[in-house]
């Protein structure tokens, strides 16, 4: 079949060129549409349900909000699991669906269930689903600030409230309409609120309650429409505006009347613009600002969207009041551009190197060009495939493509064509005629196409194990494997169609028959070496075996790494302060931190989110802040060559100079992923489920203790769930009863007094602001004040009433407002309470996590489970579940332990089919370990740990090694069988003739990687190990293929030698 295809391709050569052109154009078209990102998206399919419950404590949030929502979500199709978090003022339920579930379908399902649950929730609770976005969604951060001394039109200084108002009502609405933006999430400043601050004694003096006040506000603040009337043929609409529009309006609202005099709010309260009790703040370079994030819709192209956001912001800037600035502080485009640049550079340098090498070897520029053309063509083919399979272009998916390896097949074909054309020309002593040329090309292609196709097939097969990975690892590496496989398929198709066609079309002139200096030198060196090897088989074999054995030992000594961290170019520094740290204190510490960071010469700027933003995409308590440290471009550093790790260490050291916080340093996107995935990131997570929080904590501590004693345990940690200071106001019911008060009365007072309560909305144009009733500061700020909080008593009964109204009475205090301090009817205690309540699958849980060092994970888990089963007695209703990465490790090991042998068998089978002999297949197969040795040594030499990137290098290497082996062995076979050469002669001749393609493929694959191996640009971390392995491996593989393989072949086929030398 392949022969027919080749013939067809050569005959219809122009068509083939057009086909290639078509592939290229399609690729370019798809390249424009392809989502480009810096890193692969590892977010699972999840829907966040955020409920804002102002003022609710964690326990109440859990009981009233989280639980009903969770219950409603049970039994959703495709549901993987739910987890929830109940914190002060916030409930977040995260519904995780099985991979592959359509996000919009999932959201639809969740939305239905939320509607059901809504009836069971307390009134005034906002339930919202998080934006349709992923961990890569936060593409653009900007701040809204005022220059010092900026004033409002009325001459007053611009306040944080003004900035926030400006952002929320001018900037945000415009940005929200930018295509691809799903949410603008702001933090910092204050939401503008109108505060009514009543004087409780005045209220009581007029015999009014806080409820009356709230009632008065809500019933004096609405517009009504009343249809229309007709008059003289005209239609008049009737409306009656009654909304309050200003502080003055609010002051004039009447609450009631006292002996005929109306009592207005101004008589009992002050009204002013106040600050909300906010849950978060934003800082920039050591000062408070409004910080906002543009969140990108799932599946959009981040580069395009952040470009549009930037353009829109430039527009908005023009219409800003004087003295207000919008500053872009993080723009994903920068990173994406860097990524594209890296890929571009690789492509360019790769192509140039390939052309140079091919030219050196082939001495024919056109042939070199044909082979080099395969790089962009297979790349564009891969892009079309990626677009089809919805794989985004990023450092992982593109960074691991080794073009040298991908075009190996094509190189072999081109080389052989050239060799045969030269041979034919030499034979005929003239230039070939068209037909002859075509025949030669067909013949040459056919000779090598089978081994080269098999080689490509084999490389694809080696990638199989990667495709079976699931979870985060799967999301990271499957796209990469798929991309490579698609590129390989593209290269395969092209090498049977386009390559022979192009050779036939373009190589018209005289083909240099004499090999150039370079190749001759190679042959000159190779000949004695091969002779020596063939004559000293035992030495060669023992040495080889030793090498392989040594590298096997070396593997165990190498460090391991999850995946080399992609350098995003910036640093994220998460500051963790003790639970219960107030927002004010947190801001103070963050400001100090940012001022300190500013002194580091490499730091351009830094900004932070403290606490939870408007849309609780990341529900942090005020004690935690996500800081982002933007670095200057390397060339502006005092020492542009300083490694990033060193800078990170310096940043960490600087941060630790600010006491009171712990710091975790990562990178912006990485941080976001961790927040979203948020599974147990340790090796082992012991989840204890149960009802009673203190009991859970006791159990968790016990488990932690036992776990800590199992050999190999490290970093044993109990999830931090308590430690938030609570002021608990416990009411004395008998006393309340005696005074005629209800619990509700008192609680209402506490709520309004301390937290404030919304009484309505005030409209200013289309801006809307909450009207909040709250007691004046001096009555609510400290514990003593709260103890003194006046609780009005209900009106007196008749008999008492009369005496109270008497003008002069012995005890005149009866004329005072009848109030009782809160401290008299309640005990107020300060104690730490639950900081957050975590639940999983609708049950409270606490996690004890541990890592395992220097021990087999499986064995550790078995032992730990036995010990904990035995030592930790669980009360009824409590149970333990084991989770963590060990689950994945075990399942991955299981999968791999099936898939790897299967893949290896498959390779062997392919080899067998191709060579038709078990023995030959086995010989070629030995090329794999021989290739790996070089890779291992190269890693050890450069002190690079084993990682998946390195693994991909090894995988690619195995393919190249097998490919080269296959080419040599099948050529020797054909020499023996078709040309009836003697064994020794055939081996020698075959190896010598194949030297050129073997060296060529090797050099192309390895030299093409040299820039990558020494690069420091974006994505270099991923490519460095890969490049190192390939370079090292190919050196060893080539040497060994050229020297050891012939020896092995002779050893295995010694019988033939006897037969053929009678």
């Amino acid at each position, binding site marked *: 079949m392949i022969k027919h295809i080749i013939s067809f391709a050569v005959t219809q050569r122009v068509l083939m060129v057009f086909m290639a052109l078509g592939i290229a154009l399609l690729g370019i078209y798809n390249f424009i549409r392809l989502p480009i990102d810096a890193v692969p998206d590892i977010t699972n399919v999840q829907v966040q349900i955020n409920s804002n419950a102002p003022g609710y404590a964690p326990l109440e949030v859990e009981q009233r909000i989280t639980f009903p929502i969770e219950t409603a979500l049970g039994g959703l199709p495709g549901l993987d699991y739910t987890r929830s978090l109940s914190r002060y003022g916030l409930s977040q339920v995260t519904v995780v669906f099985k991979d592959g579930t359509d996000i919009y379908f999932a959201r639809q399902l969740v939305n239905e269930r939320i509607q059901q649950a809504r009836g069971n929730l307390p009134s005034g609770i906002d339930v919202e689903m998080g934006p349709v976005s992923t961990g890569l969604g936060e593409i653009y951060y900007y701040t809204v600030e005022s220059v010092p001394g900026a004033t409002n039109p009325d001459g007053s200084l611009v306040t944080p409230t003004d900035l926030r108002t400006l952002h929320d009502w001018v900037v945000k609405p415009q940005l929200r309409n930018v295509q691809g933006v799903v949410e603008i999430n702001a933090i910092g400043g204050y939401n503008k609120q109108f505060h009514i601050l009543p004087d409780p004694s005045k209220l009581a003096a007029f015999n009014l309650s806080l409820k009356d006040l709230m009632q008065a506000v809500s019933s004096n603040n609405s517009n009504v429409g009343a249809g229309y009337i007709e008059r003289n043929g005209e239609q008049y609409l009737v409306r009656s505006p009654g909304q309050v529009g200003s502080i003055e309006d609010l002051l004039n609202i009447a609450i009631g009347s006292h002996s005929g005099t109306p009592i207005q709010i101004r008589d009992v309260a002050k009204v002013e613009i106040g600050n909300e009790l906010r849950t978060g703040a934003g800082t920039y370079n050591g000062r408070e600002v409004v910080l906002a994030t543009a969140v990108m819709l799932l599946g959009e192209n981040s580069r395009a969207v952040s470009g549009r956001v930037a353009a829109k912001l430039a527009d908005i800037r023009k219409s800003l009041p004087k003295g207000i600035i919008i500053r872009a502080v993080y723009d994903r485009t920068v990173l994406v551009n860097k990524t594209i640049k890296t890929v571009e550079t690789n492509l360019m340098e790769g192509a140039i190197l390939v052309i140079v090498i091919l030219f050196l070897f082939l001495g024919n520029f056109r042939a070199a060009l044909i082979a080099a053309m395969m790089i962009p063509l297979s790349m564009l083919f891969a892009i079309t495939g990626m677009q089809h399979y919805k794989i985004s272009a990023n450092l992982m998916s593109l960074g691991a493509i080794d073009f040298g390896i991908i075009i190996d097949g094509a190189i072999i074909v081109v080389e052989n064509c050239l060799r045969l054309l030269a041979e034919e020309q030499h034979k005929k002593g003239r230039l070939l005629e068209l037909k002859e040329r075509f025949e030669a090309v067909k013949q040459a292609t056919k000779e090598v196409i089978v081994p080269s196709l098999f080689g490509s097939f084999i490389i694809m097969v080696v990638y199989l194990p990667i495709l079976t990975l699931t979870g985060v690892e799967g999301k990271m590496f499957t796209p990469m494997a798929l991309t490579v496989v698609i590129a390989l398929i593209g290269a395969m198709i092209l090498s049977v169609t386009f390559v022979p066609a192009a050779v036939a079309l373009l190589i018209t002139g005289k083909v240099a028959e004499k090999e150039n200096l370079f190749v001759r030198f190679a042959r000159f060196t190779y000949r004695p070496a091969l002779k020596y090897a063939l004559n000293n088989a035992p030495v060669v074999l023992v040495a080889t075996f030793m090498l392989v054995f040594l590298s096997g030992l070396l593997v165990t000594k190498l460090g391991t790494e*999850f*995946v080399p961290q992609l350098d995003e170019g910036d640093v994220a520094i998460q500051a963790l*302060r003790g639970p219960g740290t107030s927002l004010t204190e947190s801001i103070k510490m963050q400001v100090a931190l940012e001022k300190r960071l500013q002194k580091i010469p490499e730091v351009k700027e830094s900004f932070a989110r403290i606490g939870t933003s408007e849309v609780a995409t990341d529900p942090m308590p005020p*004690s935690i802040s996500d800081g982002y440290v933007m670095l200057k471009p390397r060339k502006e550093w005092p020492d542009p060559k300083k490694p990033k790790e060193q800078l990170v260490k310096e940043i960490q050291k600087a941060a630790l100079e600010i*006491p*009171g916080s712990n710091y975790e340093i990562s990178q912006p996107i990485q941080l976001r992923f961790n927040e979203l995935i948020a599974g147990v990131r340790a090796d082992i997570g012991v989840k204890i489920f149960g009802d009673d929080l203190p009991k859970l904590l006791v159990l968790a501590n016990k488990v932690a203790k036992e776990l800590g004693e199992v050999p190999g345990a490290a970093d044993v940690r109990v999830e931090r769930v308590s430690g938030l200071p609570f002021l608990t106001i416990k009411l004395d019911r008998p006393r309340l009863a005696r005074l005629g008060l209800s619990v509700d009365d008192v609680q209402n007072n506490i709520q309004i007094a301390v937290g404030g309560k919304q009484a309505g909305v005030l409209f200013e144009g289309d801006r809307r602001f909450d009207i909040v009733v709250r007691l004046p500061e001096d009555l609510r700020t400290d514990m003593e004040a709260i103890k003194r909080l006046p609780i009005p008593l209900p009106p007196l009964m008749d008999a008492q009433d009369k005496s109270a109204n008497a003008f002069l009475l012995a005890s*005149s*205090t009866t004329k005072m407002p009848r109030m009782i301090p809160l401290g008299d009817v309640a005990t107020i205690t300060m104690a730490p309470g639950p900081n957050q309540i975590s639940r999983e699958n609708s049950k409270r849980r606490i996690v004890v996590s541990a890592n395992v060092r220097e021990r087999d994970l499986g064995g550790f888990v078995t032992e730990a489970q036995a010990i904990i089963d035995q030592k930790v007695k669980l009360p009824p209703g409590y149970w333990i579940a084991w989770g963590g990465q060990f689950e994945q490790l075990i399942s991955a090991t299981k999968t791999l332990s099936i898939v*790897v042998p299967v893949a290896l068998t498959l390779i062997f089978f392919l080899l067998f089919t191709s060579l038709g002999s078990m023995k030959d297949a086995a010989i070629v197969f030995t090329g794999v370990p021989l290739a*790996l040795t070089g890779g291992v040594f190269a890693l050890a030499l450069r002190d690079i740990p084993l990682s998946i990137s390195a693994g991909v290098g090894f995988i690619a290497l195995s393919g190249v090694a097998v490919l080269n082996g296959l080419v040599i062995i099948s050529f020797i076979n054909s020499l023996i069988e078709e040309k009836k050469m003697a064994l020794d002669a055939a081996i020698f001749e075959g190896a010598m003739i194949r030297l050129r393609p073997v060296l060529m493929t090797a050099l192309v694959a390895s030299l093409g990687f040299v820039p990558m191996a020494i690069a420091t640009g974006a994505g270099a971390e991923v490519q460095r190990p890969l490049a190192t392995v390939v370079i090292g491996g190919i050196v060893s593989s080539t040497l060994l293929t050229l020297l050891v393989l012939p020896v092995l072949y002779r050893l295995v086929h010694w019988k033939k030698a006897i037969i053929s030398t009678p």
Partner: protein
Amino acid sequence: MSDENQNNIENRPVTPKPGLLGKIFKRFMQLIVVIAILGGGGMAAMMINAVEPAKPTGGHDHGGGGEDDHKEGEDEHAHGKKKDDGHGHGGGGHDEEAEGREVTFNTVTFKNAGLKIETAKEEILRPKLSLNGIITPNEEQVVQVIPRFPGVVRQIHKRLGNRVRRGEILVTIESDESLKTYTVRSAINGTVIARKVGLGEHVNRDSKMMVVADLGSVWVDFRVYLRDFNKLKINQNVEISSLVDNTVTKAKIAYISPIGMSDTQSMMARAIVPNPHGALRPGLFVKAKALLGDQPAFVTVREKAIQYIEGKPVVFVEETGGKKPKFVAKDVELGPSDGVYREIYFGVIPGQRYVSGNSFVLKAELSKGNAAHSH
């Protein structure tokens, strides 16, 4: 401390660490190498051997054993990590542990912490009690003007608000019995604050015709709630501030009512306040602070110095002797406070230097080991 922190940070599980894939991959590579070395011959057999079965045994029974014996004190020290001690585990019984309650700074962090350090010393506490009150006329200086004999009012000499001197004629009445007129005179110097009769009106012996009050001194009656009963004593000084203009008038508690008021469960205390300019108008509310008397306290610290760890009060005391600034959280027993200083019964000795300002930073340093952002 800083070394420790670094360890701590490096060990955190948030950054993807050399974990899972490395391990998988290592095994995978070993596998390939092993297989490949032996690859020529019986490949398949080798593969199966090379794959080490790592099966976790899954059996753990739920809910066995009803009781849980806590030995929390021990649990907490399981891992020998200083930071983990002392907080977070909700247990009691570890008052005396110095370890895990220390914070050591180097010069830079000490400077950045911005601590204020003072010496615990003897201090005189001046506790105050805030009170709400109402101004009433001094009833000892209020005179009801009543006719001696029933009769008809023939003449009223003084109007509402007029100042009268003692002996001045207020009303002239024609007696029913004698049909002669007689005069009613003021018994005190004062002001007419009420007038309830009209000319020609008939008055009886119990008719209150006028009220004359001397507002040169007024009473301020305070409502005192149960929890403050014991604090208030006669002769204590009070500072009364008018709600009108916040002027402060000093007075003394003159009377504490022996009778309680049933409806508000409070009692009344009274101060007699001079009112020379009439600024204190009866009927108005006032706020006041009673000075509960000077209480010498042997050891005091600033109120701001007190932090709560695990719900228990501590004071951070400077540990001397070391090279680096070092502070220890001492459990303390709190005495009374006057809002600025608080007496310490136990835990701090006089002359000891303690952190009086920004002490939260120290608490944060202690508790940050436990701060984690987990979902």
